[in-house]
């Protein structure tokens, strides 16, 4: 392996894309080439220093600073439609009421004739009149 090839493989190794077979070949070369070994060591150190840098997080004021601009870009959202199942309880109640109403409307078919339903209770005078007309006066007992 030439030093030029080895330098390419060192970069691939730092990328994590070096196949195991090439890794073995590179290690053999590094064991016998101080220059390439130094190259590999120093590049690895640079990468390690970069990767050791901590993650930074955005300051909390970012959202508040963006807020006026995002408010200006936002548009009123349509009200959410209720899902079909959400209407089920109300529908069941309405259906029940309809059925009850229908039964009530059908009730006259099994009820007394309308003239009986409309009959007013007799007055005292009417009762006396009926008694006078239909009963034997002798049967009328005094109170």
């Amino acid at each position, binding site marked *: 392996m030439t030093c030029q090839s080895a330098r390419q493989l060192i970069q691939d190794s730092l*990328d994590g894309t070096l196949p195991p077979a090439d890794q073995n070949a590179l290690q053999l070369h590094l064991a016998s080439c101080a220059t390439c070994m130094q190259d590999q060591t120093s590049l690895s150190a640079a990468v390690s220093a970069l990767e050791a840098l901590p993650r930074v997080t*955005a300051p909390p004021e970012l959202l508040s600073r963006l807020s006026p601009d*995002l408010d200006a870009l936002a548009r009123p959202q349509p009200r959410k439609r209720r899902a079909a199942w959400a209407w089920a309880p109300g529908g069941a109640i309405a259906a029940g009421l309809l059925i009850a109403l229908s039964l009530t409307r059908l009730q006259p078919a099994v009820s007394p004739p309308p003239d009986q339903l409309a009959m007013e209770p007799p007055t005292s005078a009417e009762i006396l009149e009926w008694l006078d007309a239909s009963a034997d006066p002798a049967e009328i007992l005094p109170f």
Partner: protein
Amino acid sequence: MITALDWSGRRSRRQAPSSPGSELASLGESDWVKAAQRGDRKAMDHLVRAHQDRVYGFLYRMSNNRDLALDLTQETFLKAFKALGGFKPDAAMGPWLLAIARNCFLDHTRRSAPELKSGQGDAFEDDGAGAEDPELLRLASDTGIMDALQHVPSPLREALVLRHIEDLSYEQIAEALEAPLGTVKTWLHRGRTSLRNLLEKGGGA
């Protein structure tokens, strides 16, 4: 809980950030994008929360300046939402946002190059305040690599940041940098060599 980001990297150091308003947590990113395209304000917030750390992290590592990174992150999201109508909801939003972020950074660099000279980033500032703060001490230890990184030329620097800090795959980097895979690989090789040489020189000063 925000759904996991759809740009898994080579390694997985990232936790999905939490979010209020979790009633739609089961939706995928494309659903959020479609809602945002309809002008849904909550969907916009969700997308910002899902991607803000990655975008800000990229811009911070590119600029080495927290205030500038915040400004450019704000600019990135604003441009993204204005252009969201032309974005395909089923595409990955992360690389697309990073491409916008990179353009914002390059535009800023062209407008005000002197501000981005090495050594002027806030990782190098030491006003004596909070000297015991572990965060500041850690930042100080990062100075050498960050200083060197600022001297790696573009686009090699972007490739290094996206690969070795943000854990993006080659494909995702290619999408974010709008370049073929082979070109990305070349940039990474040259970027690593450049960074190594700068570190050996003492941070590129």
